């Protein structure tokens, strides 16, 4: 469904992506792992068109996304940002229903609010949160609201950028379980960026490791521990010794 072919991106002399090739099948939950600064978020932003790649092609259902109708393309996506990226000036329900209130097929305010509250319930938040502002919520609640916003329009593809960063282990587990449940029940294609191995094991069907701007290893999550790849083995065990330099 999503195909990356030789995607490259540099920021000045820093060549972040140096030819990424990756296929993500429809309905699969793919988790991209890799150390900090290896270009995981840049890769995700390239797919969404937030960053323009210097080279390579990104295909969605066989169509080059750079030639696709932008609104129709984005309408298929939902995204949970690392810091939730909720709009400070809007109450929670308007954040969740933001897409539902835009465009030609926009819902009425009351219908959008009902849908937002249903999605808030789905991520374990009570309706009284709906009228609060993001600044009044804890980090975990903000992530849940971000998740509710990502799924509000029931997208076919959902991206999760570091979904558990900054959360305590229990809340991280809750978010991981929610992501897995939601992706399964919606039948969505998911792509998650993380370096949290508990997230990887909870969310992934398949895993791809990004290192030195390329995909170092890819395969099913069950094959990760016996991959025999020294880079992946060092990463998943969090060892300082190995082919990956500990100080980058």
């Amino acid at each position, binding site marked *: 469904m999503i195909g990356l072919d030789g995607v490259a991106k540099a920021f000045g002399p820093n060549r972040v992506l140096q030819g990424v090739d990756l296929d993500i099948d429809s309905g699969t939950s793919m988790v991209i792992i890799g150390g900090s600064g290896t270009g995981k978020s840049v890769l995700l932003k390239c797919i969404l068109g937030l960053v323009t790649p210097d080279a390579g092609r990104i295909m969605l259902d066989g169509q080059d996304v750079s030639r696709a109708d932008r609104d129709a393309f984005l*309408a298929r*996506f939902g995204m949970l940002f690392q810091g939730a990226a*909720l709009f400070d000036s809007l109450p929670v329900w308007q954040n969740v229903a*933001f897409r539902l209130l835009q465009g030609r097929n926009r819902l009425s305010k009351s219908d959008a609010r009902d849908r937002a509250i249903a999605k808030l319930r789905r991520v374990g938040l009570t309706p009284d949160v709906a009228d609060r502002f993001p600044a009044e919520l804890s980090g975990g609640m903000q992530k849940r609201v971000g998740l509710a916003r990502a799924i509000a329009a029931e997208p076919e593809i959902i991206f999760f950028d570091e979904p558990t960063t900054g959360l305590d282990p229990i809340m991280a587990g809750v978010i991981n379980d929610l992501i897995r449940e939601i992706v399964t029940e919606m039948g969505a294609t998911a792509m998650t960026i993380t370096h949290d191995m508990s997230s990887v094991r909870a969310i992934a069907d398949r895993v791809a490791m990004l290192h030195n701007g390329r995909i170092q290893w890819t395969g099913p999550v069950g094959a990760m521990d016996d991959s025999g790849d020294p880079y992946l083995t060092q990463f998943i065990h969090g060892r300082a010794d190995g082919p990956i330099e500990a100080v980058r």
Partner: protein
Amino acid sequence: MTLLSPLGALGGAVLAALGAVGRATLFALDALGHILRPPFYGREFALALLQIGWLSLPVVGLTAVFTGGALALQIYAGGARFNAEAVVPQIVAIGMVRELGPVLVGLMIAARVTSSIAAEIATMKVTEQIDALVTLSTHPMKYLVAPRVLAALLVVPGLVAVGDVIGIAGGYAVATLSLGFTPAVYLRNTVDFLEMWDVLSSLIKGCAFGGIAALMGCYFGMMSGRGAQGVGRATKGSVEAAAVLILAANFLLTGVFFSL
């Protein structure tokens, strides 16, 4: 080589400045294009009207009243040197309406509104809210920039008009309460002296200064760098650019108005 290095640095600085002017100009043209094309975000526009217009009234009023009062005192003292104290109402009126009203309101808007817009948009950029807007199929230029620029273009002339009136009132208060002017005569001299073109030129300047203030806030916000330092730089840069451009535009517009 050493002799040429200062020239190279100067050339580099000039090229950088020209590049910045070009980017800002393209940004302004893009923003104006988005004002004219749907979709329109009424809520954002109404909030911008409130923020830029209504909530700026206290600072505009206070600035104008003190400036009008001080102007009356200065003109009275200066006029006394050649027995021309009686021109206080006329000079206060023309000084406030043609020059000080628009410029002071423009600078107050640059301080209050430009900084606020730049800080808000830069923070949105740093916290990925602008990326989030894009993923939600919403163009940041349409949602964030167009409503603010349009609101500033429409509401700042109104603020200038209020500033003009309050500034004249400040001069009136000082002249009648402490300089011995007769209230009715002062008002009649003010009204008789002012021409429609004085008022119109004041409002045109207000429109231009409002547009500059909002555009600079939006431009520096959208172009901000990372982190708290990026937000700080964007805010500082936006106010500096807006203030300088407002004063430069005032000079150019005044020249144009005098040549008509």
